[in-house]
């Protein structure tokens, strides 16, 4: 799905009010895999929440295939994965995933529960309750819950933050492997620059709060990507500098 963000502002109420996003402008063609990077507290989660219709922007607009987030949400075409796993404590691992399945209307594209749990490596503890799972396991469970939802737009908030490099890479491949055929648009918040470059078609860099767009770089590299490739290394160092600047502004 096409995502158009124009003059997007969000300021949280309160005294003092907290500006989280200040004038974002970008548009994402349908099916693009976009990584979102930025310093802590710069508004990444806020942006995803706006797209998922959990917040109304205080200024500007988001359009998804020309419709408002509310309309898209009503049509259940967006799958959102929060930064914290938010697992229901009274449901088993499987139960938590199964619950999500009640909320998908007919469209196909979502994984079967069994398959989703297998792919995130929780196939053998489906009966365990969330409070008996390790941090990383909880996050993987939340991921499985997203994977069963068929959607044209994936909003993922640091889905791998609590995972070790290896699991991380394996799941990244799994994910690409699911993404290729359906080709949903993906907004992927990550702090892992290599990961961003390994996965994304495009990387958006936000400044420190209130978030503004400080870099927008496209990667036309074939997947799987070869880190030794000079273009990869170039992109890498470019990103680092952007981020450093973004941070720098934060310090001022």
């Amino acid at each position: 799905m096409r995502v158009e963000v124009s003059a997007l502002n969000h300021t949280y109420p309160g005294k003092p009010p907290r500006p989280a996003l200040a004038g974002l402008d970008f548009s994402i063609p349908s099916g693009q895999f976009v990584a979102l990077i930025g310093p802590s507290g710069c508004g990444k989660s806020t942006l995803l929440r706006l797209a998922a219709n959990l917040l109304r922007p205080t200024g500007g607009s988001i359009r998804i295939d020309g419709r408002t987030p509310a309309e898209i949400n009503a049509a259940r075409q967006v799958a959102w994965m929060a930064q914290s796993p938010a697992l229901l404590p009274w449901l088993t691992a499987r139960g938590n995933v199964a619950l999500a399945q009640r909320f998908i209307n007919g469209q196909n594209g979502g994984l079967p529960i069994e398959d989703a749990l297998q792919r995130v490596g929780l196939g053998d503890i489906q009966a365990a309750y969330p409070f008996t799972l390790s941090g990383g396991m909880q996050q993987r469970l939340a991921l499985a819950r997203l994977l069963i939802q068929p959607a044209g737009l994936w909003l993922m908030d640091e889905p791998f933050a609590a995972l070790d490099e290896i699991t991380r890479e394996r799941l990244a491949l799994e994910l690409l492997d699911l993404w290729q055929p359906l080709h949903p648009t993906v907004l992927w918040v990550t702090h892992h620059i290599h990961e961003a470059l390994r996965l994304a078609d495009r990387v958006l860099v936000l400044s420190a709060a209130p978030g503004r767009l400080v870099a927008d770089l496209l990667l036309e590299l074939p997947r799987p990507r070869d880190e030794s490739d000079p273009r990869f290394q170039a992109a890498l160092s470019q990103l680092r500098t952007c981020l450093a600047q973004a941070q720098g502004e934060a310090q001022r």
Partner: protein
Amino acid sequence: MKAPARRSALVAWGIVAVFLISWEAGVRLMNIPVYLLPSPSHILATLADNPSMYAQASLLTLGEALIGLLLGVLAGAAIAVLLTLLPGIEDGVMTLAILMKSTPLVAIAPLLTLWLGFGVLPKIIITALLTFFPVLVNVLSGLQRVDQPFLDLFHSWRASRWEVFRYLRLPGSLPYLFAALKISAPLALIGAVVAEWTGASGGLGRTMWLAYTNLNLPYLFAAIFILAAAGMILYRLLAWAEGRAVFWQSISREL
């Protein structure tokens, strides 16, 4: 958890024993006349002397109490659910509930007799009226107190109000529900007794009424002991059920 459980049971009996013994001692030493306050031994003797009478009366009263409690709980919970699904009417309905709650039962007892006759039905209704309010208030706040992250999740799923209720609020409100039950269970016993107090043809309430108006206190307190025992058993059962139902949130006592 077994050992500490047994220990605390011992402590429990110890405390009760101390209480009863000091009561007994107090009555004997200050030799308080029986028509003011009978001694526990006297009360228990009274119980022992009239087993069948108290058994029958208790059966009737406990029956009324339990059915009334059930009705009251269902009513209270149902209203709480309604108010969760239609939050607009909350203030209005709570106003009525409080109006109902503020009406002394004696004022409506005759009306109930008029409409429902002299049988157990009015007793049950009175009990229900007495028990529904705590359930309503507690369950309502239980249903309304939900963590934002979960609400966001359900919102992102475009869950209906009903689905949010069914899959999020309902399980989340269980701790409040059980607290309400623990409050209402003794209330139900009181309710049944008070209902019988006004001219019933049987039950502990009637026994107590007669005993009281004849200042026959041992019989009065014997009934009270039965009520207390019943209340205690109900409470324990509820606590046990609570542990089973709210397994994901351990009741922490060790720190």
